[in-house]
């Protein structure tokens, strides 16, 4: 077994009485792209700053390539960080920015020039060495900030929401580019973000974080299809959500009567849920099948009919909202791309159904 590039064990950080990070453990294998995904204020920046050395953990350990770095000050740690607002040095030109860390290591001048040239080549901006920071576009600055770290060949590169300041189009583009840069440099990236699509698209592994704790660590697919906690189910991707009481359980399959009076079939996927529990069921809009008539959805164990209340056209991600005839809140359903339902309009009656497998059920603790 190879030694992980980064390993955190029981990492805890308290500020006075409030704990920002509580018993977080994870490891990141060499060459992988690891993301920490969570809403703002969940403690992900605190973790990152502890790894970089700008905060000392209250307890727990941080190991890089198997060696604890707790005693090393930030300028001696083999990790580098791309800051949220990049923190490029405005008083230097691009070449001096990238050469900064090499100068600190006492690398000879010609060697610095060569390395800086090389890394600029690699990020596809060979001729910008003499330019000033504020002459670059957002995407170029982004790449320079990464190059400034990568030229030092760190064991781990930390990225603190670096795409946050970019506009939407560029952000989409940079996601792909970051992933490509990561495999080109073949370095371990630890990336924190509150934007799930950034995490899902780029990462090999994602940790979902909430209120100082890791809720789940897994691949994008795991998080999306097999969320382990209600928080992950609601935070990653969109879901329809019903709250209610479990009325019968057989194995993982169960039935739930929602507060709005719907009878729903769900699946607990191995989690402990028993008869009479308060529970929640999450169903993804794209897991719900649309049908013109009842026959189209006859093979599903969840079947509803309802009236279309809104059409939310959004290209490939178009949805409809429908109000079930049997009452309860509106349901969001993805519109299939086949064009079959292209002429649906408000007030039409449609039938929808989904299998109990797709209804992720969690017992709520307050039950």
């Amino acid at each position, binding site marked *: 077994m190879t030694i992980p590039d980064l390993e955190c064990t029981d990492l805890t950080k308290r500020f006075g009485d409030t704990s920002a990070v509580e018993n977080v453990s994870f490891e990141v294998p060499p060459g992988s792209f690891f993301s920490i995904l969570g809403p703002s204020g969940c403690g992900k920046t605190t973790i990152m*700053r502890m790894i970089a*050395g*700008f*905060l*000392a953990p209250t307890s727990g350990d941080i190991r890089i390539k198997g060696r604890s770095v707790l005693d090393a*000050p*930030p300028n001696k740690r083999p990790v580098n960080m791309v800051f949220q607002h990049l923190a490029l040095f405005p008083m230097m030109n691009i070449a001096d920015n990238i050469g900064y860390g090499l100068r600190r290591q006492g690398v000879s001048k010609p060697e610095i020039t060569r390395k800086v040239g090389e890394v600029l080549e690699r990020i596809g901006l060979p001729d910008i060495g003499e330019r000033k920071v504020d002459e670059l576009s957002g995407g170029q600055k982004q790449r320079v900030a990464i190059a400034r770290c990568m030229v030092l060949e760190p064991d781990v590169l930390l990225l603190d929401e670096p795409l946050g300041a970019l506009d939407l189009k560029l952000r989409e583009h940079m996601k792909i580019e970051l992933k490509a840069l990561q495999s080109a440099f073949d370095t371990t990236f630890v990336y924190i973000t509150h934007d799930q699509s950034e995490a899902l698209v780029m990462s090999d592994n994602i940790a979902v974080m909430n209120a100082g704790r890791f809720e789940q660590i897994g691949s994008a697919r795991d998080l999306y299809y097999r969320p382990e906690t209600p928080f992950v189910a609601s935070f990653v991707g969109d879901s329809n959500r019903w709250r209610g009481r479990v009325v019968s359980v057989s194995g993982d399959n169960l039935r739930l009567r929602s507060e709005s009076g719907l009878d729903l079939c769900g699946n607990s996927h191995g989690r402990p849920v028993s008869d009479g529990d308060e529970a929640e069921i999450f169903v993804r809009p794209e897991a719900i099948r649309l049908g013109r008539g009842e026959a189209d959805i006859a093979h599903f164990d969840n079947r509803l009919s309802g009236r279309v209340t809104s059409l939310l056209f959004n290209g490939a991600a178009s949805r409809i909202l429908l109000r079930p005839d049997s009452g309860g809140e509106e349901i969001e359903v993805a519109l299939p791309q086949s064009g079959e339902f292209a002429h649906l309009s408000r007030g039409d009656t449609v039938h929808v159904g989904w299998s109990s497998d797709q209804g992720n059920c969690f017992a709520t603790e307050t039950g």
Partner: protein
Amino acid sequence: MIPTIPQNRTIRAAYMAYVVLFFLYLALPLAVVAVFAFNDSQFPSLPWEGFTWAWFFGDERPMIGVFHERPILRAIGTSAFVGLCVSVLAVAVGTTNAFLFNRYEFRGRGLLYVLMLLPLVIPGIVLGISILVFSSTVANAAWDMANLDLQALRPGLVLVVLGQFSFITTIATLVIAARLQKFDRTLEEAALNLGAGRLTAVRTITIPFLMPAIVGAFVVAFLMSFENFNTTLMLVGSDAPLTIAMFDRLKEGSTPLLNAVSLLLMVGSSLLALVMILFQRR
């Protein structure tokens, strides 16, 4: 060296100690001046002869307090009068300057802006003598040509006001222009859109927005005028403002009376500054 960087304890402590020492250095002379205002002695120095209010309220020789010392009271009055005149003039011209540089693009704008900054880099005493020389040139010319005796252009309060105004206006302009810079022009456009005329829009929207800066500039101008020495020294006539009057006394030897005046000055200007800060917080 920022709090998030782990730092050697000794270095941190030494740094703290340095900062503390610095503030002691700042406070020491003022504290000494204040304390000796209450010394029951003819000289503001050790030994300490006991506490007294006599240097404020005393009315018998040899200890005549500030409030019974007519020349000092008159000098305070003169300073206040000069300060008010200078502040009103400087704020008025400062406001028009700020609008000019903020709202108009014209040829020579850059040059005028640099000229506007110049008084900051002219030594105060040179400003004083140049105005002294020029005003007496004009006064002499008026006398030679028309037998006009322009007393206003001879050393005296008018020249003091003009001399202080000549550089305090730059400060007022900078203070007001800095705030005008932050003003969102669309607010004025919204007012126009809602039916206000251009002047009304400026009066009802822009000026209220500028008010903190205008008050700030006024207070700063007043304080600067009140404590100005160099320029005033060259232009002063028979009515001496407070700093000049105190200087003349100090040359003859100091008594705790000067400490008492100084303490009043400190309290007065601190209060004024406090009022300004509170006003700007609002």
